[in-house]
């Protein structure tokens, strides 16, 4: 008479270990997925930092050569100059100058980072410009 109840109980006891196994598997997959996502974030952070250092170093050389212009410079993913709409990285140049007895010492503070985010790298570069006379 209680045949259907016994069958259901038998099925439950049969499926429980399998369900627990699948649940454990899903939990492990979730944890490992978080690890992979965190790794991707760290890689992206390193990529942005490397690009910022490269852009600052390049602009520092241009500044010393006297070829640096503008305050906001924008670059695409290939570190080529581009428009604001296409920019992936942004470099800001803040210039100051101090007179010396024989010329001018110009200083530029370069700060770079991903567009729309805070700068992650900053570089201060100095260049001496002798006076003509």
């Amino acid at each position: 008479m209680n045949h259907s109840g016994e069958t259901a109980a038998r099925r439950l006891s049969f499926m429980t270990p399998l369900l627990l196994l699948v649940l454990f598997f899903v939990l492990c997959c979730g944890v490992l997925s978080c690890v992979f996502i965190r790794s991707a974030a760290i890689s992206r952070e390193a990529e942005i930092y490397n690009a910022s250092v490269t852009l600052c170093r390049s602009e520092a050389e241009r500044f010393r050569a006297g070829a640096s212009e503008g305050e906001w410079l924008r670059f695409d993913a290939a570190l080529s100059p581009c428009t604001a709409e296409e920019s992936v990285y942004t470099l800001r140049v803040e210039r100051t100058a101090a007179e010396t007895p024989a010329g001018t010492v110009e200083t530029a503070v370069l700060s770079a980072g991903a567009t729309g985010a805070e700068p992650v790298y900053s570089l201060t570069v100095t260049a001496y410009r002798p006076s003509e006379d």
Partner: protein
Amino acid sequence: MGGKRFRTGSVSVLFAVIMLCVAVLAALTVSTATADRRTARRYGEYVQRLTECQNEGQRWLAEADAYLRGAGELPAGTQQNGSEISTEITDGNMTLTIRLAAEGEAYEITAWSLESQWQPEEERWSLWHK
């Protein structure tokens, strides 16, 4: 009597092997990503030291130019040998050597050389320990 019992042993082994492989991959991924970030930061520090050394050189150049034009004194740490004035600027393991050939009030930069000395890291563990 009882029905055929479903064996979970083989499924458990399969799941365990899959989890182990994916866990190893995840560990390698994290390790690689953190190594990339560490390398990037070291490169940034290197560029900072390099630029600061160059900046010191530019400031020295301003003082040396003022000295040659008679508008200042010989900068500190400068050697003068006849018409040649030179200096060495050291920042950590980097050394910037600058030499100017003075021609009256004008000058020509004859050397602007930046060298860095390699300093081996402290040996923490050596496989072939002597």
